[in-house]
């Protein structure tokens, strides 16, 4: 790990440890926006990460972005940092300069968003954002409009972790600008970013689930012994530790591939992995915590509910397996050649020639 990355991780870790507390998350679920947390995040330049300084950004690269999102997941911070970073980068790329606002992008895939009044479904943090960048298909090209979220009619909805996924209705799109991409290309770009963001955040959440489980298994006594003395409990801890280690390695490799030729395949595999194993970790932790883990009072659910929510976002296993299957079908390469990034000379390893 490079020093810069670990410095940023530590700094963000400190901020979130102080500000993304259990009490803060509970107040958030009761309907109070985490304003001081968000303000600190903005002031630290995190929302403009990955954007060049001359465009008003804070510098840094994508490995930093995903490293920070892991920490965001680790502290279950109730903020749409991944979504805002993407929206800001989108504006920096297409408008030149960015003013730091609470904004997200939304791809108008739903039929309700074709004609006025436009209704956008599942907009992250819709009730709290300043604006939404609506990306729509016009002819074969993608276009975008910046819509003031404060004038939209809001219908509240949320995901399994009580993170807002609201519907926004409005009648005027305002100025529409064309993109140099097809709608499909633009959407795929976002899907990849969102998927890798969730991989990073789930890695962090898994880490906290393991830490809570270790703590509880030392603290809780039954039959005159701490829980961790029981083999059945050790097996639960191992199941979690294995997935945490696998998640770290997955995140490290996939985020290093971001923006390279390998990104699509690696992000697909990474998201399949994390989504598939989210419940391995959540299930073992709940079994280990037993009754107390089912209560609202204990904070385990702040992490396990996020794991269950995030495994669906940015494409679940089915979505990415569909992409991989098409990729395999379209190319001559064997799996071994694609995994090792080395092509054999004639026939292939493992083939029956």
């Amino acid at each position, binding site marked *: *790990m490079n020093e810069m990355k670990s410095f940023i991780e530590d700094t963000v870790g400190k901020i979130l440890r102080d500000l993304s507390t259990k009490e803060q998350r509970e107040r958030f679920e009761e309907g109070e926006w985490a304003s001081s947390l968000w303000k600190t995040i903005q002031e630290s330049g995190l929302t403009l990460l990955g954007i060049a300084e001359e465009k008003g950004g804070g510098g840094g690269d994508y490995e930093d972005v995903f490293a920070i999102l892991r920490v965001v997941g680790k502290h279950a911070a109730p903020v749409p940092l991944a979504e805002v970073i993407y929206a800001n980068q989108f504006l920096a790329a297409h408008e030149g300069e960015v003013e730091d606002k609470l904004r997200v992008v939304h791809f108008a895939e739903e039929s309700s968003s074709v004609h006025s009044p436009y209704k956008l479904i599942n907009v992250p943090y819709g009730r709290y954002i300043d604006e939404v960048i609506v990306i729509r298909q016009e002819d074969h090209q993608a276009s975008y409009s910046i819509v003031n979220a404060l004038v939209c009619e809001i219908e509240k909805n949320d995901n399994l972790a009580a993170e807002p996924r609201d519907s926004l209705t409005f009648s005027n799109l305002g100025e529409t600008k064309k993109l140099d991409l097809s709608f499909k290309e633009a959407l795929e770009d976002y899907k990849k970013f969102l998927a890798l963001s969730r991989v990073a955040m789930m890695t962090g959440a898994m*880490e906290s689930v*393991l*830490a809570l489980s*270790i703590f509880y*298994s*030392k603290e809780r006594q039954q039959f005159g012994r701490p829980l*961790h003395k029981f*083999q059945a*409990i*050790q*097996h639960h*801890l*191992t*199941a979690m*530790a*294995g997935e*945490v*280690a*696998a998640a*770290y*390695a*997955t995140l*490290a*490799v996939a*985020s*290093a591939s971001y923006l390279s030729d390998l990104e699509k395949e*690696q992000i*697909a*595999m990474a998201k*399949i*992995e994390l989504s*598939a194993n989210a419940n391995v970790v959540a299930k073992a932790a709940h079994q280990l915590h037993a009754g107390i883990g089912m209560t609202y009072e204990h904070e385990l659910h702040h992490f396990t509910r996020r794991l269950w929510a995030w495994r669906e976002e940015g494409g679940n*296993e*089915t979505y*990415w*397996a*569909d992409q*991989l*299957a*098409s990729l*395999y*079908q379209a190319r001559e390469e*064997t*799996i*071994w050649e694609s*995994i*090792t*990034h*080395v*092509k*054999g*000379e*004639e*026939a292939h*390893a*493992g*083939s*029956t*020639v």
Partner: protein
Amino acid sequence: MRQLQLPAFEFTEKQKEFRKEVRSFLQAEKQKGTFDTHADSWLSGYSKEFSKKIGAKGWIGITFPKEYGGQARSTIDRYIITEELLAFGAPVASHWFADRQSGPLILKFGTEEQKKFFIPKIVKGECYFSIGLSEPNSGSDLASLKTTAEKVDGGWIVNGMKTWTSGAHHSHYMITLCRTSQQDPKNRHGGMSQLIIDLKSDGVTIRPIQFLTGEHHFNEVFLENVFVPDNRVVGEVGNGWAQGLTELAFERSGPERILSTFPLLEEAIRLLKEKEDHRGLMEASKLVSRMWALRNMSIGIAALLEEKKDVNLAAALVKDLGNSFEQSVAELIRLLLPAMPSKHAEDVYARMLAESILHGPGFTIRGGTTEILRGIVGKGVISA
């Protein structure tokens, strides 16, 4: 938890070239008919001729020092060779343990005479080792072993019995863990030593234990008044347990804990592509994703081992997860491509499916059972 954080490792261009070289060689050998691809070839594929060919390329003991015939190359180069051999399902069982464990052990703890005597032969693919650990009453509880070595003039007299000894009927030597002093209940891991037993010695009897397929990989090795000269003790008398543990991270985190059934997966995906079975490819892609993730872990560990870092916890996890993955391949694939699996099938797919199913129970037992590994990790994360 820092111990679980594994780095991303990227192979250099030179390393990729080397992989290509190994792959081209294997491809050519396979086309010549030197070997057929089998699942789980590292435990069951014996071929002296093939081991000698690999040795002639310099690919056995590639990390060993040049003065003993090695190439002094990196553990990453060894990793590449190992992966390619397994992906091809090549017959590597003869020299496997000598390359992976016995050679490194002798180099680390052995005498100069032992290094000069054994290492050049190992490197040529002419000298095979077995590992003498388990006993009839000491399986997972290895420290309870009963085989004794009693000091006599000029050496040791060994009495006891080893079991599940892979390849003893092909091997020249067995590195035997035995008790050289009485068991001390306060220090269960003390008083044991590692002796190199020449399997042609008087008093050594090797009897096959048939595997559930009827094949012969495992053996019982009876040791009756076997004389072992002083110069065949490895390292310090009484330090055998600790010496044996040092190489465990290599053993547990290597590609052989992930790739035993990979040839079946590759063949299945080839068939699914031929049938344009999109749904089937979708399911298979989940296995590929798992393999990729575990491989990333395993390579991350190899990179840390190269830097001499402690990776025992993560290594035990690779074995646990990797072995489960190896078993899961056949269980999913059989549903995607129904066939009658048979060891004798002419169809390669049906044969490898049979091999993968029938060898499956061994994956999670050999080299430390899943239960023992989970105990190690469970205790490790608590004290980390």
